[in-house]
């Protein structure tokens, strides 16, 4: 009896500690959403008001009128979609070559790539900025896609999966007359769907939230993506935190939705060391 009692106390403590931590983790989002619906008098109250008086979308409307957030949103979607498509294409081809095809220097090249994985992007910014200016892409949306078409990390994930596919499959496909190209797209790619989904999700997140690079290469209002447009809005909005929170909600919500929808795939990908660092 006594043992069970102590175990229950421990259980309770675990749940309590985890719940308290979870509240801290979620609170900034709650505060953002709650503030997004407050009126300007409600938001300046002290003690702060926990919930808005009404769920009016007025702040969103004003924010979208004060700055072209619809345009920013569209830009973000376009950049994300193209980036995901192009990167998936180069990654699939690259991973296939590095796992299935044989060519001289392959393994040496691959280790060279792995060693380049730890180079921080901040070191590349200076030259990449000049390159983008040189090829006339400065302040154009492709500037946000082009430098990220080849990700060593994504290629590494996919190559590991491709390598786990048994050779016999490849040889029987070859006997049936399928070339490498057909084999890759008809057999390998459908099989690699879980890995591909992970790569696509991580890439989508990285593209959507990207801030440092757009700040360097995009200047005109029409070409800003959401995170950069939002930071510019902080000066445009004046001291109107409720508008700022409405705009932030627009930036954050799509990715929260994506996460609720595909948590497991995203977590699996991150567990392999991706996203940060």
């Amino acid at each position, binding site marked *: 009896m006594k043992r069970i009692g102590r175990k229950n106390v*421990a259980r309770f403590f675990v*749940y309590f500690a*985890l719940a308290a*931590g*979870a509240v*801290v*983790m*979620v609170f*900034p*989002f709650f*505060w*953002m959403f709650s*503030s997004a619906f407050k009126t300007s008098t409600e*938001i300046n*109250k*002290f003690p702060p008001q926990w919930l808005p008086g009404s769920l009016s979308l007025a702040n969103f409307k004003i924010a979208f009128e004060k700055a072209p957030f619809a345009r920013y949103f569209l830009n973000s979607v376009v950049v994300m979609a193209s980036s995901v498509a192009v990167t998936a294409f180069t990654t699939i*081809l*690259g991973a296939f*070559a*590095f796992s299935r*095809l044989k060519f001289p220097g*392959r393994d040496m*090249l691959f280790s060279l790539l792995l060693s*380049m994985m730890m*180079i*921080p992007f*901040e*070191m*590349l*910014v*200076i030259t990449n900025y*000049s*390159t983008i200016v040189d090829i006339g892409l400065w302040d154009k949306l492709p500037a946000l896609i082009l*430098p*990220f*078409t*080849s990700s060593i990390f994504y290629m590494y994930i996919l190559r590991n999966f491709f390598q786990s596919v048994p050779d016999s499959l490849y040889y029987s496909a070859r006997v049936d007359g399928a070339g*490498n190209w057909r084999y890759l797209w008809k057999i390998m790619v459908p099989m690699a769907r879980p890995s591909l989904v992970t790569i696509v999700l991580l890439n989508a997140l990285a593209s959507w*939230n990207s*801030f*440092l690079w757009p700040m*360097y290469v995009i200047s005109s209002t029409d070409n800003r993506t*959401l*995170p950069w447009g*939002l*930071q510019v809005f*902080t000066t445009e909005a004046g001291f109107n*935190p409720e508008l*700022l*929170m409405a705009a*932030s909600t627009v930036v954050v919500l799509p990715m*929260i939705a994506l*996460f609720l929808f595909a948590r497991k795939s*995203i*977590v699996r990908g*991150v*567990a392999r060391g991706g*996203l*940060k*660092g």
Partner: protein
Amino acid sequence: MKRQKWERDLTSHRRFSRVEPYLYVLPFALGILAFTLYPVVNVVFMSFKENYSHLTRGFTEWGVGNYELVLNDKKFVQAIGNTLNYVLLVVPISTSIAIVVAYLLNQKLRFSALFQTAYFLPMVTSVTAVGLAWRLMYNEKFGIINYLLSWFGIDPIGWLSKAQYSMAALVIFGVWNILPFTIILLLSGLQNIDPQHYVAARVDGAKSLRIFFRITVPLLLPTIFLVLIINTISSFKVFSELYPLFKGLPGPLYNLYTVVYYIRYAMVESRKYGIAAAAAIVLFLFIFAFTMVQLFVQRKWVNRR
């Protein structure tokens, strides 16, 4: 005749199959070559070009002048100091919290999907957007944080307006932001520990706390080191956490200058690419040194076991 055609086909096919792999690698390799390999090499060269002009691409001479300028620049020394400070606070704090949380999440729990969702949320959302919410929470007069602290009789703190509190504000936000990623890595490390170890310890009658420190933590060490390395690298590049908190400025009195800020100002404001390049190289050397030290310590620890 027929046989010759067959042979020709075969050789042409062979020739193609020799080229084919390179065609597959080509798109990937082009991207790496243009936007990773070339920039790395170029930034090294650029850092040794004195008085480099970004317009003419000309420079006066080769030398270490940029490095001398950077290392003697008070702002850069301050930036390095702040960055180191940030790294040395954020990395240990986030890692220790994450170990505990990951350990708790690894128990067989109800609502574990709910808990995971809550803890991992900051990972998928834009740092710069959530940073604005933190700025609102940190507000000296109306902020919810000062209100909650007032329950405990603490006077309002100028988190974002006073220089002495600004680093604390940044570190708290930084820890919160990096926690999800850290927890995920440690959680997957915990899940890889063979449950047999625990069974054996239980049989020997070891208490939970003892099991945690004598079995869980040591077996988790490789993952902990991995986390330390990755988080050190990403914390050295602190920028997107800082930007939204102080309206794009590095701290209330420019007191939170970090290295990435320095690089940005050198490039965008004073247009001194050589200086920016030298600063970037110094940043890389710091990251490299820290990584090497951690790898070295890790090897020592592994050897001792």
